[in-house]
């Protein structure tokens, strides 16, 4: 008998005997010591004005992104363009829980985060069209949005590489003696990058004020979480570092806000890092060129119909007594604003060629 075959047999017998093979097929057991859990939090009790604000912000992102998709189709946007459509409740819900001096850092799907953190939609769209009026003067593009005033540290193209940066931002916040927190967003794909765990370890070691937010839209480009991850309950990924985790419905802005409030309180009070997994969904492709072979149209359609974050808050507003006409007029205002944004982004001048040589070094 081939010795490799024999070794495999012995190994499988070992796994069966110790029950390790079973773990693959049994439902995962929750850890008793980790403090991670999947139980839904009570929703945030929002006033009507707050709900209206959520509605406006999410609708603005949605219409903005739809317009970006159109401009891309017209060849006006170069490079890449990763749309946030479907995930709006995450950035909007979290942003509403922050205070002055808190910071945000995220990956490449950054338009929504830039807008909710305070960047003007015009400057974001003009960045996509590579114009001098862009938020990085048309030198950064879709993945590289930054706004120091808003505490928005980007906008990063290398998947997962922003996670140590966010951890370092949190180190500095603590070192300077502030009680500020840092939101460090990344996706389910980034959750499989090694340096994420280097950062987790240091964050817990020094109890840094960082909230790790996994925006689990379920696909790393074309690879689903199930096809890429041995442990699919991503909120548990901090457990062995001593970082508590929580599963949150990322399509329900009120649950997001409640989770954000609890996480911000935990971290601001000096309890160290926390990890939240936001279950969400992107309706569009990973980028503008996406063959979409990895999911069915039906899956996308069902999610749109049953879990859409904007429809959710709209329904709550109507139940609360908001007038449908008022919502329609908000929709109209946003539509007009986005048209204006697009006009600006199409017509702003391109960067001067001399800009190519600026800002390589401070003294250059």
């Amino acid at each position, binding site marked *: 008998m081939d010795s490799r075959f024999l070794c495999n047999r012995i190994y499988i017998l070992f796994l069966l005997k110790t029950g390790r093979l079973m773990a693959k097929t049994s439902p995962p057991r929750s850890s008793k010591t980790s403090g991670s859990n999947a139980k839904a939090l009570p929703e945030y009790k929002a006033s009507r004005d707050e709900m209206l604000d959520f509605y406006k912000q999410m609708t603005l992102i949605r219409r903005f992104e739809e317009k970006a998709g159109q401009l891309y189709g017209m060849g006006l946007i170069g490079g890449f363009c990763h749309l946030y459509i479907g995930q709006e409740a995450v950035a909007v819900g979290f942003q509403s829980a922050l205070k002055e001096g808190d910071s945000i850092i995220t990956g490449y799907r950054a338009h929504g985060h830039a807008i909710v953190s305070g960047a003007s939609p015009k400057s974001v769209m003009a960045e996509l069209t590579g114009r001098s009026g862009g938020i990085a003067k048309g030198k950064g593009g879709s993945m590289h949005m*930054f706004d120091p005033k808003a505490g928005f*540290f980007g906008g990063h*193209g290398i998947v997962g*590489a922003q996670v140590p940066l966010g951890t370092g931002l949190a180190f500095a916040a603590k070192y300077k003696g502030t009680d500020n927190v840092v939101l460090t967003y990344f996706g389910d794909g980034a959750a499989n990058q090694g340096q994420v765990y*280097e950062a987790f370890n240091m964050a817990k*070691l020094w109890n840094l004020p960082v909230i790790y937010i996994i925006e689990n839209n379920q696909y790393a480009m074309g690879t689903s979480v199930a096809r890429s991850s041995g442990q699919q309950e991503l909120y548990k990924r901090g457990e062995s570092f001593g970082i508590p985790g929580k599963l949150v419905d990322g399509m329900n802005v009120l649950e997001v806000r409640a989770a954000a409030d609890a996480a911000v309180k935990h971290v601001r009070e000096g309890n160290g890092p926390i990890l939240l997994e936001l279950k969400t969904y992107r309706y569009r492709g990973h980028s503008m060129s996406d063959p979409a072979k990895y999911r069915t149209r039906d899956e996308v359609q069902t999610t749109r119909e049953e879990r859409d974050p904007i429809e959710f808050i709209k329904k709550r507003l109507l139940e609360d007594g908001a007038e449908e006409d008022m919502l329609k007029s908000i929709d109209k205002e946003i539509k007009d604003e986005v048209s204006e944004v697009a006009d600006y982004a199409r017509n702003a001048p391109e960067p001067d060629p001399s800009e190519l040589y*600026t800002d390589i070094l401070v003294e250059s």
Partner: protein
Amino acid sequence: MAELTMIQAVNLAMREALAEDDAVILLGQDVGVDGGIFRATQGLIEDFGAARVLDTPLAEAGIIGMAVGMALNGMKPVAEMQFSGFSYQAFHQIENHVARFRWRTNGRFSVPMVIRMPYGAGVRALEHHSESREAYWAHTPGLKLVIPSGPIKARALLAAAIRDPDPVIFYEPKALYRAFKEDVPDVAEPIKIGKADVVRVGKDLTLIAYGAMLPRAVDAATKLAGDGIEAEVIDLMTISPLDEETIIQSVKKTGRAVVVHEASRSFGVGAELCARINDKAFFHLEAPVKRVTGYDIHPPFFAREQHYLPSVLRIYDEARETLTI
């Protein structure tokens, strides 16, 4: 004035920076309690505390990524990689964030940080414990690359690097850490990053070197002087941005140049220097520019280490050959 080795001078520069500016912190594996793998940070945790002399886990990408975040948020981190050969774990953080943040954000953020790394052969190690891959960093726009060649310069250049608003890769030639002492002044004489130093004036040819090869180039110049040849020796000190002016001025005067580095030969700093000299001083050249370098191999284990490194004799021979043309 104190007689210090280069490792003590490096230590002094960090001590002074920590005392001068609360935003400065040191971080890396074993930089605290253990005083650093080569003892560069010895005694600093005792005087400045564990919050500023930070022992990190073994995680190069995490260390550099964290340091970028710190630098973006108002701090001035000085990170140590135990050996330059370990920095490849952090390569993408250096390439994608350290070097580009300023450009990418159109100058609204900068990354004032220093990454110290011992590099080079001559300590009976091999491969990633001995190699000189400075060309990687010099090739990347947005980084400054500084390499001292002795205690006085190490102290002054590291002080300048920590104060610099741009990210600086600080390559320390580990073979020189305890090779000789110099009288290091009580107050650092400022050395500007981006300037080369003419350490010996001559009219017959120009030897260009840096780091651990500088003392060998100087020794070769002394040997040439025995033959009546006056070699000018330039210590680059800053590899990037390169002090082209000093080099071109010298080569225009001597008409001959030999570049010395211990890094492997192809696509290295020597190739860049040859190209610049061709561009700017071609009609002053009396002979082709020579390179005396390591070979295109990985630095060998100790039995053959000195065969790999440019020796004084190799530098001398190549210089003589240049002069025969």
